[in-house]
């Protein structure tokens, strides 16, 4: 957040400088990137484990619902972070993703417009997703995480298979 400015003109250069001129910048960016992929993978695996243990059954139904929310939040966090380096990978991966969401029935165009902050991906999208990635989604995620852990304890701890 100190070295990065979310504009189409500066984002990519800032990442480049972060990697070459900032102490441990490359290492920290690498860790951020790989840990993010690990997190998505781990959340999927966690969901599978909970399902196979039948741990979504009463009294834990509500916590399962929270968990599905957390899965979506994780995907959103990962996806918003994907755009920020503003390289070819980011631009076109997000283009593919948001084009799909544009096919939402009835108000697809509006959904896409809100997501992109315009009719096509650009600086406005970058700013929007940056704020989502560093501020709003973490904020919401922490709230849901807190509820998730609180429910784990309330509902009698983690559940085994039997």
């Amino acid at each position, binding site marked *: 957040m100190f070295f990065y400015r979310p504009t189409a003109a500066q984002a*990519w250069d800032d990442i480049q400088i972060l*990697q070459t001129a900032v102490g441990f910048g490359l290492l920290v960016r690498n860790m951020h990137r790989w840990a993010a992929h690990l997190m998505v993978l781990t959340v999927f695996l966690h969901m599978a484990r909970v399902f196979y243990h*039948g741990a979504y059954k009463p009294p834990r139904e509500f916590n399962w619902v929270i968990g599905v929310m957390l899965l*979506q939040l994780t995907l959103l966090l990962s996806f918003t972070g994907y755009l920020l380096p503003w390289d070819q990978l*980011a*631009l076109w*991966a997000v*283009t593919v993703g948001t084009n799909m969401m544009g*096919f939402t029935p009835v108000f697809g165009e509006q959904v896409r417009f809100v997501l992109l902050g315009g009719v096509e991906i650009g600086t406005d999208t970058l700013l929007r997703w940056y704020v989502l990635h560093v501020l709003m989604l973490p904020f919401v995620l922490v709230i849901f995480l807190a509820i998730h852990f609180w429910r784990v304890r309330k509902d009698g701890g983690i559940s085994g298979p039997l």
Partner: protein
Amino acid sequence: MTEIPEHLRKRAEEARAKAAGESSSSPESEAPTTSGEASSTDEKIPAHLLDRGKAASDQSAPVESSDPGLGTGPDGNTQRLLAVVKSGSIQDTKATPVDKVHVWPHLLVIEFLAALGITLFTLLFSIFVNAPLLELADFNKTPNPSKAPWYFLGLQELLTMFHPMVAGVTIPGMGLILLVMAPYMDKNPSKRPEDRKFAISLMTVHLMFWAVLVMIGSFFRGPGFNFVFPWDAGLFFEL
């Protein structure tokens, strides 16, 4: 000191009678007998306690014994029954044992170690493998193929088979709704795997279906999103 178990009282009385009748041996060897429970705990009595006991027995002033003369040996040494401690009060834990342990330290130590481990793994992995940073985004150069992040590649794979609205909105939307509804639709109370064959089969089929789609999208799709074999055409996959 309300109820002294019958067998303990009997044993104490016998010992007392024995001490009164015969000329008893040294006070140390007698002590465990009066203390009741296990005479095999002789060695466990700390030396300083034994010394204290000896010192006390040297003073011929029994306090608590109901009959002072009863425990007095021929040499004037005495043994005193200070107290019979019921085994329950010193051996039983107050809480009845259950199959639960405290979160701290039993769970949190494991979790902390796991966090350390995964941090170490990420650190080492990040030292050796760099995160991708391709060239600057360019609207005029569409990479071929263009791929979404890996966790959306299953959806992108569906795009090759269905209308975008079905692949991009309807199917994932239905999937998420079904996931949220799972605990309310699956009314089977049992958590045993053998009782929930249907639920497990259904979930496994869908997870496998999804994993296969993601893998095809990731590794088996080349230029034009055409099906290729990675060992022929190379990998078209960036994380």
